[in-house]
């Protein structure tokens, strides 16, 4: 037990003394997750909206596929993206393997089904009277779309927060696509995995505490938003 207590004390020392390696991992995590979330929200919200709002042939099948992708294992996404970005892969020419944009592509694939599925659910749960009301008040197609998204805002924010939580805590994609390169692609989760395997608990615990703090903020926001909706 002694080494764990010692690790916790040292972890606080690292955080308070602003240890460069620790803060590099934190910064890299925030950076790559921001890229991934920006891309997944930009693609996922419109796709989720149309999946929830429109009725078309094959909608149920598409919904089932999206729901299945919610359980996509991160190591499998890592493998696929690695294969795509490696020199032999179709996107090898862009040199994205072992870079942050490469990791962000993998994390976008991870977050996208979550954003689409939860946005579609939020839109589907809108009252049928909303559409009639907006049309009765004279909304055109664009105003109808914007107002429906605004009315489903709490549900869409829940989708974003849930996807962010998943992106932040994944390890498989970051490790396989990013390569866990120190000062470059090492994220909080890959650093914890590495430091633990080396028996260095202090940095692992310090990073774990930061991850817990971010997860707390994310979940607190989620709870608040759910209450509002």
């Amino acid at each position, binding site marked *: 037990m002694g080494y764990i207590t010692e690790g916790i004390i040292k972890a606080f020392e690292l955080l308070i003394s602003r240890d460069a390696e620790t803060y590099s991992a934190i910064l890299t995590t925030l950076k790559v997750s921001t890229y991934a979330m920006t891309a997944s929200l930009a693609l996922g919200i419109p796709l989720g909206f149309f999946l929830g709002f429109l009725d078309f042939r094959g909608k149920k099948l598409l919904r089932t596929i999206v729901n299945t992708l919610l359980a996509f294992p991160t190591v499998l996404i890592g493998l696929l993206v690695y294969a795509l970005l490696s020199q032999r892969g179709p996107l090898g020419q862009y040199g994205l393997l072992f870079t942050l944009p490469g990791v962000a592509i993998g994390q976008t694939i991870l977050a996208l089904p979550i954003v689409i599925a939860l946005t579609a659910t939020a839109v589907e749960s809108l009252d049928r*009277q909303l559409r*009639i*009301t907006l*049309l*009765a*008040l004279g909304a*055109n197609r664009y105003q109808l779309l914007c*107002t429906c998204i605004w*009315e489903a805002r709490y549900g869409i924010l829940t989708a974003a927060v849930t996807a962010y939580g998943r992106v932040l805590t994944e390890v498989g994609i970051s490790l396989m696509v990013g390569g866990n390169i120190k000062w470059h692609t090492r994220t909080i989760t890959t650093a914890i995995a590495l430091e633990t395997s080396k028996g260095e608990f202090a940095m692992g615990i310090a990073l774990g505490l930061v991850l817990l703090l971010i997860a707390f903020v994310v979940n607190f926001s989620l709870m608040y938003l759910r209450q509002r909706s």
Partner: protein
Amino acid sequence: MIPLYEIKNLIHKYGEKVALKIDNLTISDRGVTALLGPNGAGKSTLLRLLALVEKPTQGQIYLRGEPVGPFCKAFRKVTLLPQQPYLLKRSVFENIAYGLKIRGKKKNLRQKVCEVLSWVGLDPDQFLHRPWYALSGGEAQRVALASRLVLQPEVLLLDEPTASVDAKSAQLIKEAVTKAVSLWGTSLIIATHDWAWINEIADRTLYLIKGHVLPSEMSNLIFGPWTVNGRFWEKRFRDGQRLLLEPPPSKDMDIALISSSSVEIFGNPKPVHDQNLLSFWVTRLNLKTKSGQILVTFSLEDVSFTLEFSKEKFSSYGFVPGKKVWLSFPKKASAWL
């Protein structure tokens, strides 16, 4: 004169079910048109189509002679207050201002919103910034009405606006609607079961049943169950009276329509030839304020006939609620549905 609405060869379906079938219908401009009919008759569907929020499955609707549909040029001239209005998840102000904002009419917004709020009996100081979830059912209904009135619509369509509110809210809604009609000349089309209000304000009445619009002359309906008696269909009443009608032309028809002009009234039983003669009770008297005509409703269990009388004719019959009279009508229904 060009009518307000003209409907031609309209069929509207939900899935395979035909909700509305209107071959030809015109609704006059200005004034108040009442839509009457039982639940499920198609009143709400007709209002949604007239409000241009739904496109008919087949057929065409014309508004002042122009073919119209959702998102057409004229679609902002018309507004609908549904039976269960939806308030946006915003404050009362934002709800009422929404329609004006999307039209780009942002001048004197607060003043316009406050004005219509007071029309519907809500104090702007108290309600303007109140969120949507802090309103009672009656207040929400009045905010929803205010969000339509602020648009000063040319056509206002109301679907049972007073059905689920208390007497005070109902009165305030009626007053606000009447004010809009008299002040801006708004054409009002209203589906309601509030007979007293309809008789007070309606210039014309449309009866809907099973998705069909009936002329007011044909508004006396006889529902089943029917039993077969020789070559007739028979409806038996608990007091032993029997009503006989020639069967309908099609098996899926089971509601008989009796034209008001084919009904004769007697104070005492009188021998009639090849006609139904049944005793009814006078159950309701209504004055049509605008025309001065008197509507008398005669009831026998679940069958009600409503006939219109001039003041002179009404006086000569001496109708009072509870009076027993004898109604005679042919054994051939005017129509079947």
